[in-house]
């Protein structure tokens, strides 16, 4: 009897061990990392370092493929329809997943079309001003803007404009939106003294002594700016865009594959190459488990919905 129960127990144990084992065969062939930006950009650079580490950790070649356009929308729209077999995964900022479908009704994908295997780093999304600006926080900025009558704001993306519109609506500010393309266009406008205020994906940290960080746009305080208040803390409810970089699979993926990727990301988060690159692009490593990443995506999408309601945004 005892032997029997022992045998059953052993068999059950073997079965339990065998179940995930069948899936951990993944990957059996080359895996493709999908990046929503052009080769040579910030996300691409980090992605390629990650691909190198994953190649080592997963034991199969990880190739990078770039499908740029529409702030990652082009890549994500196609990725939704990929087979959920682990042959392809997406690497990029969460903001592309949460913000895009809410401001563009033509897009089919939604944040819950994907399964998140974890987060790795975090864009330091902030509101910034020139270093010589006569204010240091949001309250100071609002007072300054009211005194000046109308301020000039560098708007580098639809998201950047929405954030400022929400602030302006709530504080009753008048703003001239100066459109610009990408972070470097914004830096140029600020350095040459053309604008009073701007939105930065974190790029301003590369120009020490030229910028002041006024507020964090994320839902929680940022790794590089622990002393800087978030917009939510400053009283702007729901005004937040989170942009941690995550790894995502299409819905329907085998949980064992997600678990294996999650473990590989954990290793990548302490890899010296990854630490070196994170330092040089001023993007701290913020490792998140699959569960943490999924929760963040959900919260972040909800915050954006509130923000869009505040300004009465109509998706185009």
């Amino acid at each position, binding site marked *: 009897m005892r032997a029997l129960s022992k045998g059953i127990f052993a068999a059950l144990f073997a079965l339990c061990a065998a179940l995930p084992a069948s899936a951990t065969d993944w990957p059996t062939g080359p895996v493709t990392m999908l990046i929503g930006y*052009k*080769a*040579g*950009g*910030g996300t*691409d*650079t980090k992605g*390629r*370092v990650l691909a*190198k580490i994953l190649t080592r950790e997963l034991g199969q070649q990880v190739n*990078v493929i*770039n*499908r*740029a*356009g*529409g702030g990652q*929308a*082009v890549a994500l*729209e196609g990725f939704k329809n990929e087979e959920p077999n682990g042959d392809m995964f997406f690497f990029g900022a969460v903001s592309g997943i949460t913000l895009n479908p809410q*401001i*563009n009704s*033509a*897009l089919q994908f939604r944040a819950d079309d994907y399964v998140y295997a974890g987060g790795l780093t975090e864009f330091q999304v902030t509101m910034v001003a020139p270093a010589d600006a006569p204010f240091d926080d949001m309250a100071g900025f609002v007072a300054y803007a009211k005194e000046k009558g109308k301020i*000039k704001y560098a*708007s580098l*993306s*639809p998201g950047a*404009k929405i954030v400022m519109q929400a602030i302006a609506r709530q504080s009753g500010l008048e703003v*001239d*939106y*100066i*459109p*610009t*393309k990408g972070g*470097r266009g914004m*830096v*140029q*406008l600020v*350095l*040459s003294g*053309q604008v009073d205020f701007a939105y930065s994906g974190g790029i301003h940290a*590369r*120009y*020490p*002594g*030229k910028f002041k960080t006024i507020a964090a746009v994320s839902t929680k305080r940022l790794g590089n700016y622990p002393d800087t208040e978030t917009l939510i803390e400053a009283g702007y409810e729901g005004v937040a865009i989170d942009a941690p970089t995550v790894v995502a699979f299409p819905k329907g993926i085998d949980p064992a594959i997600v678990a294996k990727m999650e473990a590989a990301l954990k290793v990548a988060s302490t890899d010296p190459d990854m630490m*070196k*690159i994170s*330092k*040089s*692009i001023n993007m701290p490593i913020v490792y998140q488990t699959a569960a943490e990443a999924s929760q963040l995506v959900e919260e972040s999408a909800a915050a954006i919905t509130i923000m869009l309601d505040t300004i009465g945004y109509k998706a*185009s």
Partner: protein
Amino acid sequence: MESFLPVLESAFAPGNLAWILFGVTLGYLVGALPGLGKGTATAVAIPLTFYLSPLAAIAFLVGIAKGSTAGSAVSAILLNTPGEPSSTPTAMAGYPLARAGKAQKALKMGLFASVIGDLFSTIVLILVAQELAEYALGIGPVELTGILAFSMVFIAGLSGRSMIKGLIAGLFGILVSCIGLEVETGSPRLTFGMIEVYDGLPLIPVAIGMLALSEMMIQIGQRQRLQDEADLLQGSGIREDRIVTLGDWRRSARAILRGCLIGTGVGILPGLGASVGSFLSYGAERKASGRGADFEETGAIEGVAAAESADNAVVPASFVPLFAIGIPGSVIAAILIGAFTIQGITPGPLLFLENRDLILGVYISMIAASLFLLLIGYFGQNVFARIVRVSPALVMPIVVFLCCLGAYLQGGGAFGIGVMVVFGIIGFFAKKYDFSFVTFLIGFVIGPSFELSLRQTLGLVTDVSELLDHPVALAFGALAVFGVWRLTVLQRRQHEAMVRDQP
């Protein structure tokens, strides 16, 4: 000074030199292949640099950038298939020379002009990067609007025989550039529901289709005649047609000097780009020579010199804002940021303080790359010049394949190839029916920058009197207006002459 020796040692270390040489060779080869150009070459090579030391990696990429910029003259002159918009003027003035049996002369002049432009611009970068960068920052959106307006009007003068058709092509180019998300509101414009075009139609596939694929369609249709002329393309057999003579130098010296200045100036200003540099330089030489459309009919060695010197001068000059303030002046400079970043280096004001040795090493490597370019180009040309001896039935399918590869890499996959085909067809019609593809491309390339800087200007300048604070912008604006007036006068004269000729 004492720290200078180790820098020299590391820059001239055999490993580093080998990487520069490899970069220049690879770049020249890729640039010389039709349908592939400097953007593709540099972007594709980035992953290679993972395995190198920072200096070797950056020197390698700089070598690729320089090599491919000069190499693109080869396919432009020999096959009339420029790999990038910026080598279009080289093809316009150089291909007729090749057809007249002077391919080797044109190739050599192209190379010499490239190296001179490159060296000149590199030296400017080394000596005055800091000072120039401060100045470039003063060129804001308002000034840029003026400069871009002036450039568009000036380049419209290259529109070929019919001004009406040239203007139609230019407007069509701007119209096509409107496709995508509009930059101020972010609302889709002329996208027909296709999200692939949200960032606009990809430049390289449009350019390859318009320039190279359409040319292949035409050449495949005329293959019998080309086969018959193949003997002439190999060279006339006269020594003067193979070398650059003293007379050629005399004719081209002014063009090269002007090209160096224009290319360097355009490179330093972020937001203009190599195409503006080579077209402006070419247009200025065409105007100065007083030969007009004859330039493209019989070919012009000074036209090749003007275009190539400016095209190459843009590359090092576009590193001025990159090194000094961290803002790239060109696509290549933007790609280099990625390479710096991978190596843990931040381009920008701190570069000279924190990584002074590295920058010095990069400077030395850049000069070495210029010299390698001369060597590789000079001997490489002999190999490439043999292409014309190969049967068109073998060359053209390979060119078509390479065009597809280039469009694939820079245009988001199969979609990019589709875009290339569409613009191949449009280019075929444009070339056959004399709708200037030059004005089309300029409209397409400059259109978005112009619209953006105009929108910025309208946001920044709230009162007309504020314009007085922007004398540079006013000067270029006035030049643009003057240019429009001149063009109208010229057009009327042309028309009167035509009426006289046709009783």
